[in-house]
């Protein structure tokens, strides 16, 4: 027990340079802002989050339990508009790294309220956004490449656990999505027809995909690849563990470290699949939020080396 606890404690201990968490903060913030800009551009604040008598689809004030937003501030369309403005302001500050932690908390709380106003409009990716923002409540990520660095002084070290928790979150997203794919269409006995069927759904497909009949085997291959990719996510923590303990013996450890399984194979496949989703399906920011979180898979020192290489290549 003591040994297991020591292992668990060590897993979340330690610190590292804040650049990766800063990169994720900026990327996630920009994607989130893009999505909120669409809400504003399409004039959807009232339909999505307004009260029923103002045209709100969720009709949030006619429920057994009215959300706190409307209970505390009144049942008015102005409340929805102000909530949206404050949310946008909080996400802008978060992205700029200005009062990052309180702004992350504010964004989480308001976004959670809006999610409850019209739950149908709140997708899994919104929950993932809130999960990630909530992690940022506990990490001073704005003190590197952020306004907080100017206000409170820059930091060269932050706790390492938030980045590791984001890795775990991504692994859980992929792996649980994989093991839940129990429909026969995902498996050989269902003819690996899943991707073909999904792409025929007119509400999801970006363009008509009836021509895929001509290349049906290709869709079957990609169905299998998608499933394998998601199921293999369970090996990612093992790969990181092997990397952190590379000095120890063991054939499997050596293989994982020799082939850098995650960064050389699994992650590029993930990038490819998400770009494929973005090109073929209308799932909004889903693929972009997922990709914005991918830097978490890299240690800040790896990112620093990559940035140096890029600078040497392009900056002279």
């Amino acid at each position, binding site marked *: 027990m003591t040994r297991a606890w020591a292992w668990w404690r060590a897993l979340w201990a330690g610190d590292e340079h804040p650049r990766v968490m800063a990169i994720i903060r900026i990327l996630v913030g920009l994607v989130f802002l893009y999505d909120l800009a669409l809400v504003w551009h399409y004039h959807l604040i009232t339909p999505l989050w307004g009260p029923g008598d103002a045209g709100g689809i969720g009709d949030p004030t006619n429920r057994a339990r009215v959300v706190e937003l409307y209970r505390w501030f009144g049942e008015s369309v102005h409340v929805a508009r102000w909530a949206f403005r404050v949310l946008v302001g909080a996400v802008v500050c978060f992205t700029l790294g200005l009062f990052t932690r309180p702004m992350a908390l504010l964004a989480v709380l308001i976004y959670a309220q809006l999610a409850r106003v019209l739950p149908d409009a709140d997708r899994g990716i919104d929950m993932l956004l809130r999960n990630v923002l909530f992690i940022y409540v506990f990490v001073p990520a704005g003190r590197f490449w952020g306004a907080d660095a100017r206000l409170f002084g820059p930091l060269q070290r932050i706790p390492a*656990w938030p980045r590791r928790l984001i890795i775990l979150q991504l692994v859980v997203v992929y792996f*649980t999505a994989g093991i839940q794919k129990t429909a026969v269409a995902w498996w050989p006995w269902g003819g690996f027809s899943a991707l073909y069927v999904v792409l025929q759904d007119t509400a999801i497909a970006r363009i008509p995909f009836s021509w895929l009949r001509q290349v049906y085997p290709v869709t079957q291959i990609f169905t299998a690849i998608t499933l394998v990719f998601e199921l293999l996510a369970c090996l990612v923590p093992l790969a990181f563990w092997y990397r952190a303990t590379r000095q120890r013996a063991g054939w499997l450890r050596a293989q994982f470290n020799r082939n850098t399984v995650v960064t050389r194979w699994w992650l590029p496949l993930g990038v490819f699949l998400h770009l494929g989703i973005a090109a073929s399906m209308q799932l909004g920011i889903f693929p972009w939020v997922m990709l914005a979180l991918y830097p978490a898979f890299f240690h800040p020192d790896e990112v620093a080396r990559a940035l140096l290489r890029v600078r040497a290549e392009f900056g002279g």
Partner: protein
Amino acid sequence: MTRRRWRRPAWDDVRAALLLAVVVVHGFAAAPLARSANRKRYDLPLARDELGRIATLAGRFGIDSSADQLADAAYKVVKAQSGLRNAVLAPFANVLELTGTGQAWGLFTYPDRFPARLVVEGRPAEGEWRRLYASLDPNATFNRDKFVYRRIRGVYDGNSDKAGRAWNPFVSWVAMEVFAAYPDVDEVRVKFRGIHTYEPGEAAETLVESGERAMRVRRRP
């Protein structure tokens, strides 16, 4: 008897304990357990299709079962699962609700061979119905960008099998959008056209539209 002295836990221990609690609660929330059980959902075309396929598959291994028997068995398991899930997560429900955090990651778990196409039509007082919008119809693209926007799609997608709570307000919103854009339109109707997706080898066509669901009509106020 020696008494062990209480040791102030180091920050590493406190952090590890808090993260253990978070990982356990969220890990349980992420477990593929059903959130709710509804026997009627097993009668939807998607479920009947899936159960029929499983029954056929089981038959190949000498297990005789009908889609109804499988539905009854699945319902019992799902009911027990959802009860367990809700009971375990109940103490944390308020925090999860307040923060809007949680774990639910089923992406295309059951590819739907019986999806639906959103159709919006309008007509003048005494005129013919005209198709203004239909998903992926190049000749009916009114408000296309709005209707395919993920949050709006989420609203109507959930009503394609059975009109839910948000369907009527959604239709009213769509009607107001149409009335604002088309001064000549006095009546709007919104509905779903059922679609059956065929895999190659099953039928000559890929998509066959059939039947209408959840039709609602709104008149200009």
